[in-house]
């Protein structure tokens, strides 16, 4: 998320640009097809028909040249990372309530990108759009990663699993869906990664909220997707486990995965994230490496950056479409 900013370039880009690539069964062959918004592919790891999943032959030079409403700060090291997801002029509305407006951004490989913002600012909606689970009202999301059985891993904000199964059975089921040769071994490895190996035989309905979230994180990494989207992965976890979850995110990024997460734990975000985007009232109002953002605003913490960037008063939730501009 190092290059693009909310765009207002005024280009006549179609509202539903829908280039999509489907991964063929048992092959690595890809076919580029133009799909309408209503014609979702039958088998598509990125279910959003508005999510373009091709690798364009030309880099996004147009995106790089976009003008910006938001303040963007960059450093050379992060700008070198290839973008795996690229959102272009995303709008999303629930009925008449606009939640996202003109959001353009990128999610880079090998980096932890954090989305922060007040409650109701549109973080979860943006994450779901980027994960291909919500069709944007306008704009497009382009997947530029490599071909993979599972392109995007996803942790919902409130993960839950089918009762009656153990933790290991649950993860084994998901591992089997990506064709893991040794689903059981793969599931055990994922559990060890999140520190839940001892709970392998525990029924999922007997897990605490925090443990359920850890199982959800393990699930999100199954299939080694090039992009992992985590919606508030540290919510409900104790400080030690929160730190562990962010360490997992850093390790994934170190292995080349593009990690996109949302969080209200600004200290951990400050310490861990390579890129931070501040979302307020459905728009990205500031983005860049946290250190650069602090330096630009001459403040000493990401919390101060946050407070400088968002419009809401502390203790007040701005409700989009209701609260006065």
């Amino acid at each position, binding site marked *: 998320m190092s290059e693009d900013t909310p765009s207002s370039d005024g280009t006549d880009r179609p509202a539903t640009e829908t280039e999509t690539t489907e*991964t*063929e*069964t*048992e*092959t*690595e*062959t*890809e*076919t*580029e097809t133009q799909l309408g918004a209503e014609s*979702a592919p*039958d*088998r*598509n*790891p*990125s*279910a959003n028909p508005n999510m373009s999943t*091709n*690798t364009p*032959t030309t880099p996004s030079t147009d995106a790089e040249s976009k003008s910006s409403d938001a303040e963007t700060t960059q450093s050379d090291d992060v700008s070198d990372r*290839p973008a795996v997801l690229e959102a272009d002029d995303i709008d999303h509305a629930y009925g008449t309530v606009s939640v996202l407006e003109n959001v353009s951004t990128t999610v880079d*490989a*090998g980096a932890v990108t954090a989305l922060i913002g007040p409650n109701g600012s549109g973080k979860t909606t943006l994450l*779901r759009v980027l*994960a*291909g*689970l919500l069709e944007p009202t306008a704009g497009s999301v382009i997947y*530029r*990663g*490599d*071909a*993979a*059985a*599972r*392109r*995007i*891993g*996803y942790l*919902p904000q*409130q*993960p*839950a*699993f*089918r009762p*009656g*199964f153990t933790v290991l059975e649950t993860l084994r*089921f*998901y591992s*089997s*869906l*990506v*064709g893991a040769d040794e689903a059981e071994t793969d599931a055990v490895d994922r559990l060890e990664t999140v520190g839940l190996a001892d709970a392998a035989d525990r029924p999922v309905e007997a897990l605490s909220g925090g443990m359920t979230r850890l199982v959800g994180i393990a*699930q999100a990494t199954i*299939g*080694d*997707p*090039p992009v992992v989207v985590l919606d508030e992965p540290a919510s409900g976890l104790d400080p030690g486990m929160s730190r562990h979850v962010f360490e997992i995110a850093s390790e994934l990024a170190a*292995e*080349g*995965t593009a990690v996109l997460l949302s969080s209200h734990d600004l200290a951990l975000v400050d310490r861990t994230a390579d890129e931070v985007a501040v979302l307020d009232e459905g728009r990205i109002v500031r983005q860049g490496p946290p250190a650069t953002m602090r330096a630009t605003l001459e403040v000493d913490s990401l919390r101060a950056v946050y407070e400088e960037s968002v419009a809401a008063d502390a203790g007040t939730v701005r409700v989009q479409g209701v609260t006065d501009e």
Partner: protein
Amino acid sequence: MTDQANLESDAGADTGGEVEAPMQARTPGTAHLLWTIVGRELRTVSRTRTFYLLAAALAAVVLGITWIGGGYTAGYLPTAVDLLTPLELLVPIVAVAFGYRAILADEQRGELDVLETYPVSPREIVLGVYAGRAVGLAAAIALPLAVAAVAIALTGDDTVAIYATHAGADSPVLFARFLVLTVLFGLVVLAVAIAISSLVSATRSALGLSVVALVALLVGFDLAIVYGLAEGILGDADLLYSLAISPLSAYRGLVLETTVVVATGTGPQVASPLASLAGLAAWTVGSLAVAIWGVRR
């Protein structure tokens, strides 16, 4: 797209994925995915006490009617006739109970969203869920009927020596037909329940829509056919085929046509077996198509 695919491979190498990329790009086949989902559903059915209670209640009714009605001594055909009407009511209820939350529960937990990030299509999800639940429902229906058949074989007054469909003769083959048709009827209603499960977003809505569907299936379509006949919309010649439109009438007609009429050897034709089977197949396929659309939506 070949060039683009190559670029994607290059991107994978750039991000350290040069070893893993070929493995990741291999998408499991439909058979593997279906079997994985079916296995999950089978485990769910086998571990849910509610399903055992439903199966036990159905078994109690079937065996109770067989016992009280004297069917186990009277023979296969009298037992099938005794059971037909109660099963017309009970099988749809049990089938709806097996299926009305099958997809809804995953949707409410957010697991349907998570599944969307895996290389599994809505069609594979629906067919896998349906097949898994269908096995459980078929067992719940077939086992008590099979037990009743064994009771008849062991305790019947007259030993049945004919194991073929002879006009004027009772036969276990006739009861086997009744059993198979009853299971088929249950599977049709299960498909309707799965469709309902994929269309609603709340348990209360699922229950409400299930009740509406049950009333329509058990009463509504038959009343519509009667109304059509009374108003002259349907002619007498159309009756056999119009019965196929209603799953319940199609089931009843198939049972009567392939068991009672065969055994008695006389009487007018009460149903068109081919049309009835086509009607049941259309309800199943149509309902599953609606379910796939619902999941994709």
